[in-house]
């Protein structure tokens, strides 16, 4: 089994790195005690879920088993937890009251999308990536990030954004979702088990930006100061 893992690690280095790199922000959150902030607690939860699912997907990929059902399930968790971070960060309560209903709505939409793309839901071998949910998730997350940036500029509460942890987390997420928004619909066709559409190196873009976003998230966490958070 170990040989299979090593072989797959070398075979798909980029996706393997994107799995392993998740350990960096998790370690940093514990080291910097960033879990004191509820937003960072949700981020930690997301990173742990992501690591577990990514490891399971790595195992499936290494053993030549269709792992797309895990990918589809991740979309729901990722959106709920990522938008949940903004629930604690937004100061405008008019905005926060939309976050939870949208998360519930999005979860039902993704479940419908999974069922729509996979009429034979029990056939995991030929399971396919969702068609629309990834794009909708990207749009919604970009919307929350831009709205948060607007609030950040308007409130003038942060003197230096470059030392503000959540700014780097938002930047990482913005880059990730911007890279995903156009590629997301094609992934449905490009990652099918039997007949796949070749989009060349474009399918590497999500992995590259996953690594970039995790790096920026790590940078943000490394700037977190528990003492500073306690004071505010």
């Amino acid at each position, binding site marked *: 089994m170990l040989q299979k893992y090593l072989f797959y690690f070398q075979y798909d280095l980029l996706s393997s790195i994107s799995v392993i790199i998740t350990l960096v922000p998790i370690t940093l959150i514990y080291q910097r005690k960033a879990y004191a902030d509820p937003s960072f607690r949700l981020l930690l939860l997301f990173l742990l879920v992501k690591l577990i699912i990514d490891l399971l997907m790595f195992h499936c990929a290494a053993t030549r088993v269709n792992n797309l059902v895990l990918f589809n399930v991740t979309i729901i968790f990722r959106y709920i937890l990522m938008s949940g971070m903004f629930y604690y960060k937004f100061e405008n309560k008019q905005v926060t009251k939309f976050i939870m209903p949208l998360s519930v709505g999005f979860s039902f939409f993704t479940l419908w999308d999974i069922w729509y793309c996979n009429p034979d839901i029990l056939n995991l071998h030929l399971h396919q990536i969702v068609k629309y949910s990834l794009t909708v998730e990207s749009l919604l997350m970009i919307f929350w990030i831009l709205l948060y940036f607007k609030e950040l500029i308007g409130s003038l509460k942060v003197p230096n954004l470059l030392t503000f942890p959540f*700014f780097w987390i938002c930047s990482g997420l913005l880059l990730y979702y911007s890279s995903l928004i156009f590629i997301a619909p094609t992934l449905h066709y490009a990652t099918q088990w039997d007949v796949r559409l070749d989009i060349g190196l474009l399918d590497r873009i999500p992995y590259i930006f996953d690594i970039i976003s995790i790096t920026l998230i790590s940078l943000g966490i490394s700037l977190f100061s528990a003492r500073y958070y306690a004071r505010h």
Partner: protein
Amino acid sequence: MQDTEQMKWALLIGTLAMLMMAFFVISFVIYYQKKKFEEEKKLNEIEKNYSKLLLDTALNSEETERRRIAQDLHDDIGTMLSLTKLSLNQLSKRITENGEKEDQIMRKAQSLVEETILHVRRITRELVPTTLERFGLAEAIDEFIHKLEEGNNLTICFQPGEEELPRQGQKIELTLYRIMQELVNNAIKHGQCSKIEISLEMSKDFIGLRVADNGIGFDPDMIKEGKLAGLGLLGIESRLAIVNGTVQYSKNATGGSTALTQIPMQAVSNSKPEPLHPFRRERVTL
């Protein structure tokens, strides 16, 4: 095949455009936030300077008004009382010859006039500290505490510092003097103390005024909470704001409290301070 290639290019261009937009948004947020903060800082600075100017004007007006009242007391009331005293003296000589009862009433009137003259002089000096402008801060404090000790059962120690304090700008000296007055009054009025220690401390860049008492003291944290606003501490801070000074309060281990005021040293101008007495006002010829 060609369609797939076109789609790949479209996807690549679209993704690159989105990424460029994301980079632009991030850079814009950083730039805009920085710029807005600088503008806000400038605006705050202007507002702060304006408040400082208003405060300065108010305090100057107060000092001018004190000076005007002192002038009026000295020139008008003082002169009139002196003349009254002179007239009473002349009248006294005539009354002495006539009767004992009238003489008693006359002496009482003379004594009252003399007392009033002394009161007017005291009030005039309190309104405008002439010693401060003529001889400097150390002498003015010395004079103040001597007068205070006379009428109270109070011990006041004053240490003018090891080195002789060089003359400072009029504003600095007056600020320190008024603050000293306020702190000493607070110690007597609210602190119920029996001993006050005043010292002038000089460093390379700052002049320090330390006022310590052995009274009931107060919790310095209460100032931050705004619970001691009635002690004239706001007035002290307002005066200090104009000369970029600071004040720190602490509770003494042995009881009472200490206030340390620090003001940056200011180069002494060559021009002599404008004297308060003799007054410059033109006298009206009757």
